[in-house]
C-alpha cells in the first residue's frame, strides 16, 4: 500500500508541474498495459515516450513541447470509452493515439467523432475502425497500419503466387476478431488465386494452449502450408507442438501477430516460416529507433511492430500539427487526412481520404533463419 501512496504523491507532483509548464500540446495515448494485451502494453508505452522525448529535444512542435497522457484501458472496449472521455473532457488533449485493439477503437470512434478529436489506431486492423458499417468514413478516426482484408490478401497472394502452394490449412482463434478477420480474407483471396483450404480448425485463445488435437488432424491432410492468423503465444505454440508431432515439411505463414519472443518458445521450429509484417528489424531506417530504445530501456523490444507503430504515429501526428500550423483538433484532423508521401521511419505514408487507411502501404515479408527474423522481400499484391 505504501507504494501506491508514493505513487499518488508522484501523481500530484506531475499535475502540479504540468500546471506550470503551460506551453505544451497534450496528446492522449490508450495503452493495453493490463488485461489480454498486457504483453504488448509496455513496448508501446516505452516507444511513444521515446518519440515524445526525441521530438521535444528537437524543439517540440510549433515551439511547444508534446505532453503524452497515457491511460490503460485493460484491453477492454468499455474501459477504453471512459479513458477516451477522460482524455477529452478532463485532460483536454488535442489528439489521441492508440489503441492497438480494433474492438476498443470501434467503441471509441463515435465518441471522438462527436467531440471532434482525432484518434489514430496503431494496430487496429479491422476495417470498421475507420469506416462505419454503412461504408461511410468515420471523420476523426485514422490508422497507421494496414487492414485485415489487405493483410489477408497479402497472405493469400504470398502463399499462392510467391510460394506457389495450392493446399493450405488454417488454425485460427474463434474468440479473436483479428484472427477471424484474417482467416476470412485469406480464405477468400487464396481460393481466388486457385488454392484450396484443406483444413480449417478453430481454437479459443486464452485458455486453450494445446493445439495438438487440431494439428494431428491437419497432419493427416496433405496441406502444404499452415496459416496462423493469430497473435502472441497462439502463434508460437502451434508451431512448437507441430514440430513435436513430427510435422517437418509444412510451411508456416502468418500475419503481423509475429513477435521475436516466439523464438524463445518455438525455437528451431520457427525457422523457414514467413510473416507479413509492417517492417523489418534490419531496415536501416529503423536502426536509430532500436538503438535509442535499447539505450533508454535496456531491452531489445521484441514486440517491435506495436512499438514502432506507436512511435511513428506520434511522428505522424507531430508532422500533421506542424502542417496544420495550429494545435486545434479540427485542423489536425484535416492535416492528418491530407497526409501525402510522408516519410516516417518504417514506411512512407499516404492517407486515403475515403477510408482513412494508408494507401498502398508495402508489406514486408519476414522469414526466420536460425532463430532470427530477416527481411525476405517487399510485396504488393496485384
Amino acid at each position, binding site marked *: 500500500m505504501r507504494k501506491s501512496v508514493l505513487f499518488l504523491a508522484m501523481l500530484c507532483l506531475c499535475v502540479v508541474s504540468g500546471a506550470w509548464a503551460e506551453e505544451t500540446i497534450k496528446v492522449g495515448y490508450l495503452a493495453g498495459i493490463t488485461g489480454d494485451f498486457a504483453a504488448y502494453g509496455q513496448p508501446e508505452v516505452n516507444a511513444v515516450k521515446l518519440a515524445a522525448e526525441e521530438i521535444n529535444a528537437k524543439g517540440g512542435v510549433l515551439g511547444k513541447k508534446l505532453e503524452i497522457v497515457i491511460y490503460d484501458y485493460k484491453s477492454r472496449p468499455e474501459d477504453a470509452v471512459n479513458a477516451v472521455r477522460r482524455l477529452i473532457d478532463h485532460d483536454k488533449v488535442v489528439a489521441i493515439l492508440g489503441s492497438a485493439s480494433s474492438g476498443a477503437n470501434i467503441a471509441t470512434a463515435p465518441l471522438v467523432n462527436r467531440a471532434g478529436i482525432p484518434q489514430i489506431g496503431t494496430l487496429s486492423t479491422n476495417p470498421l475502425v475507420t469506416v462505419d458499417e454503412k461504408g461511410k468514413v468515420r471523420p476523426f478516426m485514422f490508422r497507421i497500419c494496414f487492414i485485415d482484408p489487405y493483410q489477408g490478401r497479402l497472405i493469400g497472394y504470398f502463399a499462392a503466387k510467391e510460394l506457389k502452394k495450392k493446399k493450405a490449412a488454417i488454425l485460427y482463434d474463434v474468440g479473436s476478431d483479428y484472427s477471424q478477420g484474417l482467416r476470412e480474407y485469406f480464405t477468400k483471396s487464396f481460393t481466388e488465386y486457385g488454392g484450396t483450404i484443406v483444413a480449417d480448425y478453430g481454437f*479459443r485463445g486464452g485458455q486453450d494452449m494445446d493445439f495438438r488435437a487440431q494439428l*494431428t488432424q491437419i497432419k493427416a491432410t496433405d496441406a502444404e502450408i499452415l496459416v496462423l492468423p493469430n497473435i502472441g*503465444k497462439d502463434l508460437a505454440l502451434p508451431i512448437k507442438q507441430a514440430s*513435436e508431432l*513430427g510435422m517437418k515439411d509444412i510451411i508456416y505463414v502468418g500475419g503481423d501477430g509475429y513477435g521475436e519472443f516466439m523464438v*524463445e*518458445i518455438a525455437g528451431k521450429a520457427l525457422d523457414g516460416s514467413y510473416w507479413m509484417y509492417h517492417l523489418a528489424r534490419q531496415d536501416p531506417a529503423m536502426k536509430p529507433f532500436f538503438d535509442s530504445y535499447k539505450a533508454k530501456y535496456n531491452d531489445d523490444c521484441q514486440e517491435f511492430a506495436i512499438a514502432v507503430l506507436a512511435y511513428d504515429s506520434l511522428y505522424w501526428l507531430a508532422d500533421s500539427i506542424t502542417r496544420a500550423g495550429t494545435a486545434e483538433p479540427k485542423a489536425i484532423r484535416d492535416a492528418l487526412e491530407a497526409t501525402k508521401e510522408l516519410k516516417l521511419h518504417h514506411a512512407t505514408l499516404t492517407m486515403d481520404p475515403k477510408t482513412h487507411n494508408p494507401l498502398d502501404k508495402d508489406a514486408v515479408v519476414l522469414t526466420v533463419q536460425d532463430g532470427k527474423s530477416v527481411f525476405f522481400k517487399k510485396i504488393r499484391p496485384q
Partner: protein
Amino acid sequence: MKEVSHGLETFLQQVINGLSLGSVYALIAVGYSLVYSVLLFSNFAHGGFLVVGGYACYAALKVLGANIWVASAMSLVGAGIVAVVTERLAYKPIRERTNVTLYLLIASMGMSIVIENLFVIFVGGRFRALPPVIPTSPVSLFGLATTSAFDLLSLVASVVFLGALQIFLLRTKWGLAIRAAAYDLRTAGLMGVNVNLLVSIVFFVAGALAAVGGIFLSVRYTLYPQLGGITIKAFVAAVIGGLGSLPGAVVGSIILGLAEMLTAGFISSQLRDLVVFSLLVVTLLVKPSGLFGKNVSEKV
C-alpha cells in the same frame, strides 16, 4: 479430409495427446482438491501459485544459471512458501473468524488478481519459455503414433508426484491428520492437532504441486502472468471428479483431457470447450457431488 489408413493412427495420437494434457490437469486439480477437502472452499489463487512456480524456475535457470534439478526444487519450495504466506495473510484471519466459505473464495479471487498483476508489473507481460531443459523431441511409439519425449516425462512425473502424495497421506502422521481434517477440521482441532500448522502443510503441498504443474506448463506451452487462467480447466476436472476427492481429481482430469482432445479432433475444434462444460453439467446432474464426491446430507 482424412484418409482411412490414418484413422486408427490419428485416434491413438489423440488419445496420447489427451492423456498428456490430462496428467498436467491432474497435478493442478489434486492440489486444488486437497485444499478444498480441508477448508471446503475453491482456492482461485491456485493458478497464482502455478505462475509463481513457473517464474521461480525461469529465474533460477536464466538468472542464477542453476541446473534443472536445483531450479525445480527452488520453484517447488518457492511456490509452497508463497502458498503458505497467502494462507497466513489472506485466509487465516477469515477462517478463524467465520465459517462462511464464500469470504475465503472472494479473498482467493483477490489474491489471484494480485499475484497475476505483481508479475505484470515487475516482470512484464511478455510470453516467455523455459530453456529446453526437458527434451521435447518427437518419440515414435511403435510406429503407431508420435509423441514428444516431454509428454512421456510429464506423465511419469505426474504419476510419481501423485504417488508420493498418496504415500504422504496414507503413511505419515501429518498425512493422517490431513485426512482427519478433511473429515472435519474442527474435530481434528479438538483432537489436539495443530490446525494452523496442518493448514500450512496442506497449502505448502498444494503450492508445490501447482509449481510442478507450472514448470510443465511453461515448458510445454509458455510462461506469462495470465498462465494461471488454465487452472479453470483443472477446477472443472476436480468438480467432475468430486470436490475434495483426490482420486476423483485425477480421474476427472484424465476424462477432461481425453474429452478435449477427442472433441477437438473428431467433432469440432471450436466446440471443444462447449463439450467440456456440457460434460461438467451432465456429470453434476447425474451425480451432484461428482464422480467420487461424498454425498453430504445435512443433519436436521
